[in-house]
């Protein structure tokens, strides 16, 4: 509370001399200065007003004589004179051009009062000389700053408060009415029924009321009837659609990543649908917040048995709604920026804090340090972008897979038997090849083909020479044995594979050599027979597979070698600093090789950066995923780093080993064909018994592809029952449901970046919550997301409940109790009703964080139901209506305007409540309209739908000609008017023009038309010459009603 000058002036007037030396100060003066004054001067003023420093306006405030001497505009302090001391005028913001601290929040009233008391006491100041660097450092020390800043209201515990006494039955009204009475205002009466019902319907569901009969709007509305209406609207699926859109504002929802190319965020819409379901189901808010950070890691996730979804895991998608630059040459900068995007969103949306402002230095105003930002940075950057599987565990899945594998085992035996016969026929077939085989042999120009010797024979080589390329290659193996690589993973070995993250039923375990896949459809039985490695598809090509390496820092210039196979659009890539897009210096390889092949990618460019290596099925890349790709697969057996310029890995051609062994010193072509047959028999035996080598597997695979092993169902009719059984079962296997998310990477604390410069990493900061609440480092081995999720909603965190209660209030009343819903810090606004805010926060927590209960509580208050006509004096005494003596008139949001147009014209399709986002001309609710960052829907954008770059808790409400032009001239709007008119014209109950006019007013405004209005509307549609309506007149009327202010405003 500011002190009045009169209180102190007389008593201290004599003290004006102001020459008190340090020695003359009383201990009480010194203590007052040290505790109340020095920290503020040091922390808020020295930056610009320090001896030897910037000395702005020639003023230093760092010792007594400088303070008294003042700057360009005179002494800063006149001891004893709290009215004329410039310092006090400046901190009281008495002059627009002298408001201090500059570019910062005004100091707390209590601090200003301290300064007034200090000046009134004669400004006792023990500082004889400018402070030393060390003294300033101590005064500005973060712990000292933090201690002071933690006193800010929003960091104080939520108080247990009771509603004040009062006549009102509703506790919320008692809080509000007390303040209205204090201001000697009266409250507006309850709004009329029609106004109330329209307000209620739009506020809760974003749509006009459904009632059609004008009579519905004229009657009385009892509190019981109103409450019933509230319950009905809360139970409507439209509620979730409306409130999900609010939530999407808080988390900057978008369907694309922005920048050059503006690629889609695959499956982002699943997160939108998740919000709609969650809000309709009234899932407790604290649960939803936890899901937003770590829904994929909750011990007991929320499962949706109807849709077969792990609902909780879908919450994580918000972390992937980030902006992504295109092909940044500085990948680390991009990583820091998009991690900052995540931190900015989470801290603003759920805590009302601007933690992003502490990225380069401690926060300028709030108790948030750069170490806080860095602690969170460690948490978020210990993950990597991904598409994650969000299916609920399917209880039948393991039995189905067991059955599939059993059938597959039976097929293996049956195939091995059948192929023994092919081995018998092999010498003859090779000796006198048919047309197809002749072609294959002619094509086998490379020694990587098993038919290569016959190719050489056909070219006239001697049998011994036909095997020479293989022999030479095998001689080379010995020379390469023992070669070491900077990094090598043999992913056919469980020991190496276990260091990699593997997600998907196939890649969970290493597949042994000879594991094979079956074709789910078409004219083949076996898809392929594979050497050992990690494969996504032992059960099915529907299965997803994700295989991710540990992180690697590229200390020098390397080449990357990957031995992979795959088809259907699977990916093999390296990922620099988590950057998930592709383009120019971010190459991504689609795997298109049925047999294993080495792929090389140069890493030279990225020397010094951190990368990881990633293999995935087609629908499982964080950005590049093709959601329509239902079948794809890959296998990987080896990954190598080679110093740039060094030779690549030695290709061992495993398939040739059994052939060379069996062919021995083949002298004649017959020796060769017999040798091939012998090798085949041995490999088949080994394969059947499950002891195949990579060589056996690759040999069988090659012969299969060459048509030397029968692989068509028609060729092997005996296998039909097994194949059909397998295919029938495989068809029932679920296609995994993917959603944007993150995967856990090896966790690491992030370094403090000097002045935010990511090229200057400093000490590492432990992953933890905010030190203003709890500075204990997380004792976790994972990223810490789950711990952070729990901290966000822990009971002693006073922000979470206050922030959401305020957001709900904002959307119901048009303005929050805190008018800056995303900022509860010093640069935000103070709560208009702090006790009410705390009472509501407690009430909300006690009512299991139920948003619907909170909405019901608030809209059933008298305050919410008041008329918008201001009571006497309210406009003058409370022009901002912060006391809520009446309802504030509001323009509808963009979505409500568009949805209203669709609903009123009868075009709105509300049946479909899920699925990919749609174009703006599709007659579905706006929450389903695509949010493409570089191509925002022009109609919605004109009416202030937010730009999805950062959380928007409170939208702008602008008035620009683009709005009038859209409603007047946009073809979409005109078309709706025409359809509406046509619909009414076709309805016999509205054959009478007057009845039709009344129906239109009822639909557009949810009230009965006045007689005057009916008259004017009839005159508008009537042709004065003939007395009858022009064909387009009714469409013109409909169009005109769309353009009335009543259509887009809520009172």
């Amino acid at each position: 509370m500011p002190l009045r000058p009169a209180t102190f002036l007389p008593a201290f007037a004599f003290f004006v001399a102001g020459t008190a030396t340090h020695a003359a100060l009383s201990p009480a003066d010194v203590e007052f200065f040290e505790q109340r004054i020095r920290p503020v001067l040091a922390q808020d003023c020295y930056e610009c007003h320090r001896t030897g420093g910037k000395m702005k306006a020639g003023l230093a405030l760092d010792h007594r004589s400088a303070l008294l001497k003042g700057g360009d505009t005179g002494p800063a302090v006149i001891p004893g004179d709290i009215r004329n001391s410039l310092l006090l005028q400046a901190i009281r913001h008495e002059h627009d051009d002298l408001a201090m601290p500059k570019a910062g929040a005004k100091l707390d009233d209590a601090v200003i009062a301290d300064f007034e008391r200090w000046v009134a006491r004669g400004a006792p100041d023990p500082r004889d000389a400018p402070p030393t660097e060390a003294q300033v450092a101590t005064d500005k020390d973060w712990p000292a700053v933090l201690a002071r800043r933690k006193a800010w209201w929003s960091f104080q515990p939520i108080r247990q408060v009771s509603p004040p006494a009062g006549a009102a039955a509703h506790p919320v009204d008692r809080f509000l009415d007390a303040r209205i009475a204090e201001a000697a205002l009266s409250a507006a009466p309850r709004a009329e029924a029609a106004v109330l019902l329209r307000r209620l319907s739009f506020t809760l569901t974003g749509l006009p009321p459904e009632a059609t009969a004008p009579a519905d709007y004229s009657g009385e509305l009892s509190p019981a009837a109103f409450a019933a209406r509230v319950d009905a609207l809360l139970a409507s699926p439209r509620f979730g659609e409306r409130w999900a859109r609010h939530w999407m504002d808080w988390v900057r929802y978008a369907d694309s990543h922005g920048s050059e190319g503006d690629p889609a965020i695959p499956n982002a819409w699943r997160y939108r649908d998740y919000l709609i379901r969650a809000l309709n189901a009234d899932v407790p808010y604290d649960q939803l917040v936890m899901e937003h950070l770590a829904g994929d890691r909750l011990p007991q996730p929320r499962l949706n048995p109807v849709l077969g979804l792990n609902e909780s895991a879908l919450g994580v998608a918000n972390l992937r709604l980030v902006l992504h630059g295109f092909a940044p040459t500085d990948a680390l900068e991009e990583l820091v920026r998009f991690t900052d995007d995540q931190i900015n969103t989470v801290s603003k949306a759920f805590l009302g804090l601007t933690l992003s402002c502490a990225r380069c230095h401690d926060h300028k105003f709030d108790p948030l340090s750069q170490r806080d930002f860095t602690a969170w940075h460690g948490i978020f950057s210990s993950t990597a972008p991904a598409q994650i599987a969000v299916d609920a565990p399917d209880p039948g899945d393991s039995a189905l897979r067991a059955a599939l594998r059993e059938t597959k085992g039976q097929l293996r035996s049956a195939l091995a038997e059948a192929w023994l016969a092919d081995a018998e026929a092999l010498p003859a077939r090779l000796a006198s090849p048919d047309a197809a085989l002749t072609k294959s042999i002619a094509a086998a120009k490379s020694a990587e083909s098993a038919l290569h010797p016959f190719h050489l024979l056909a070219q006239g080589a001697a049998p011994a020479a036909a095997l020479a390329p293989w022999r030479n290659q095998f001689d080379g193996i010995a020379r390469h044995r023992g070669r070491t690589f900077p990094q090598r993973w043999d992913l056919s070995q469980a020991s190496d594979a276990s260091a990699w993250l593997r997600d998907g039923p196939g890649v969970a375990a290493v597949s042994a050599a000879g594991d094979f896949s079956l074709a789910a459809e078409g004219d083949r039985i076996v898809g392929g027979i594979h050497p050992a490695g990690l494969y996504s598809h032992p059960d099915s090509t529907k299965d997803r597979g994700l295989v991710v390496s540990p992180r690697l820092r590229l200390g020098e210039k390397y080449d990357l070698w990957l031995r992979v196979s795959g088809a259907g659009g699977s990916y093999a890539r390296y990922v620099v600093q988590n950057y998930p897009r592709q383009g120019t210096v971010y190459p991504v390889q689609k795997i298109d090789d049925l047999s294993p092949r080495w792929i090389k990618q140069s890493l030279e460019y990225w020397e010094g950066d951190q990368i990881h290596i990633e293999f995935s099925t087609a629908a499982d890349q964080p950005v590049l995923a093709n959601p329509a790709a239902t079948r794809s697969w890959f296998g990987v057996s080896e990954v190598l780093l080679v110093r740039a310029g060094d030779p690549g890995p030695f290709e061992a051609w495993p398939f040739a080993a059994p052939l060379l062994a069996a062919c021995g010193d083949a002298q004649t072509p017959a020796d060769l064909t017999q040798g091939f047959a012998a090798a085949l028999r041995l490999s088949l035996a080994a394969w059947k018994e499950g002891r195949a080598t990579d060589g056996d597997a690759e040999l069988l695979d090659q012969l299969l592809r060459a048509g030397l092993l029968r692989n068509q169902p028609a060729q092997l009719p005996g296998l039909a029952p097994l194949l059909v059984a397998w295919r029938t079962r495989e068809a029932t296997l679920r296609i995994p449901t993917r959603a944007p998310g993150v995967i856990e990477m090896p966790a690491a604390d992030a370094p403090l970046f000097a002045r935010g410069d990511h090229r200057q990493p400093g000490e590492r900061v432990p992953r933890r919550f905010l030190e203003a609440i709890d500075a204990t480092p997380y004792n976790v081995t994972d990223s810490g997301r789950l711990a952070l999720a729990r901290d966000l909603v822990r009971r002693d965190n006073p922000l979470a409940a206050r922030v959401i209660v305020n957001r709900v209030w904002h959307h119901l009343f048009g303005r929050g109790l805190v008018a800056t819903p995303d900022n509860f810090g010093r640069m935000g606004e103070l709560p208009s009703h702090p006790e009410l805010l705390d009472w509501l926060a407690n009430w909300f927590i006690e009512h299991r964080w139920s948003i619907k209960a909170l909405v019901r509580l608030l809209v059933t208050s008298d305050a919410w139901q008041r008329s918008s006509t201001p009571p006497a004096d309210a406009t003058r005494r409370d022009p901002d209506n912060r006391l809520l003596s009446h309802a504030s008139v509001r323009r509808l949001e963009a979505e409500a305007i568009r949805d209203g147009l669709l609903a009123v014209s009868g075009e709105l399709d509300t049946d479909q409540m899920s699925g990919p986002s749609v174009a703006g001309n599709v007659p579905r609710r706006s929450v389903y309209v695509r949010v493409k960052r570089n191509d925002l829907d022009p109609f919605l954008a004109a009416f202030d739908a937010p730009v999805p770059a950062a959380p928007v808790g409170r939208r702008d409400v602008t008035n620009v000609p683009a709005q009038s032009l859209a409603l007047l001239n946009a073809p979409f709007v005109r078309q709706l008017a025409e359809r509406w008119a046509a619909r009414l014209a076709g309805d016999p109950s509205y054959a009478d023009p007057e009845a039709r006019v009344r129906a239109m007013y009822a639909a557009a405004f949810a009230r009965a038309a006045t007689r005057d209005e009916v008259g004017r509307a009839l005159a508008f549609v009537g042709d004065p010459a003939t007395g009858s309506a022009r064909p387009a007149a009714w469409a013109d009327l409909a169009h005109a009603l769309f353009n009335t202010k009543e259509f887009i405003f809520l009172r």
Partner: protein
Amino acid sequence: MNPLLTRREMLRRCSTGFGYLALSGLLAAPVRGAVRPPAPHFRPRAKNVIFLYMSGGVSHLDSFDPKPLLARLAGQPMPAKVERTQFNKNGTVFPSPFAFGRHGASGLEISALFPQIARHCADDLCVVRSMTSKVSEHAQGNYFFHTGFPNMGFPSAGAWINYGLGTANRDLPGFVVLQSGDATTPHGGPGLFGNGFLPAQHQASIISADRSEPVPNLTPRTADARQRASLDFIRGADSDFTLRAGPDPQIEAAIRNYETAYRMQSAVPELVQLTGETETVRKLYGIDDPHPQKAAYARQCLLARRLVERGVRFVELSCLNEKIGGGNAPNPWDQHGDLERGHRAMAHQVDQPIAALLTDLKARGLLDETLVIWAGEFGRTPFSQGTNGRDHNPYGFSIWLAGGGVKAGMVYGATDELGYRVADKPVSVYDLWATVLHLLGLDHENLTYLSGGRNYRLTDVHGEVIRDLIA
């Protein structure tokens, strides 16, 4: 309602025209920052800005920064450390295929790419050869050049300037982006011209200079008499509603908005149709040039003059695509290959129209108060990409300024002998905008807006006014 806006001020703000004049955050206006009287901080040298944006990145080495050393090193490996490039297809030293000459009394060096500018305007140009950017990719580079931040979500320079100075013509928007032909928004999208967190009235209006509907939804779908009747009907209904809802400035503003919209329907086409321009002027710009891209760009240049004549604060022009060597509609100057042919075509498109614009502005006495900025988002490498293209180079490149209080016929700063990096007097994007704001009478450190808990500037926390550029 916002207590800071009096009813009188509300009406003043609402009754104004075409511009995207907004009542920002009326229901819940930010108390700090939103409302500040638009007035310059000190005496301005310029009133308007015309921004000739060469999207895609013009090669400084082939236009305004001659490097004879490149010819001597032609075909050799770069004799200096090479930073990461966008395509990593670095070739050898690539001399300019264009001859340079000295022009005008000032002897300013300009290549054969721009014969008209060289002949008529050399002594008007203030060439900065030491420009730098932080970004070597188009979208982020465009955002950085327009907003001072390399991503969407921040106000464009044109929006800041309108926020700082207010509009000078209540019937036109203060920030216009011109497009014609196939010209489109550079990579990054319309957010490049956005108001960011500033009130919406400061965002750019994109005017399609040669379309029948230059602004979306401008064309009435019914005959004028019928529309007038509809508007009368609407007005009647609105009066009733105002009575029922009580006096509310937002509703009144929305009502007046319709009058503005109605006027715009005829005013904008009139402006765009170049009525009243003489044949001489049309010829000077090349409005009827047989080369369609050049004619389309000429139309933008002439319209830019018409707009600044009418007090529009900031006009940005958009190049058209010649479809050569990596150039696409959003980045037509982007010759990763076929640089000689591509740059020749692009320069031919803009040379005469720009020379005409400067000449015309000067003849009408407008050049003194109009600052013309010619720049792309970065320059290009002195070594080749592949055999005959150049990759992006943000480490040193050239832009020029003209009119509006800058020195004429001068060169500022320098790149190294290879034209790769700045060697003398580096100028950042922050410095450029600090200087531009200064010329407009605005102190870049005091042109701030509170958003998300922080006071933002066009120049972030950087930027120095380059006083040597100021006449």
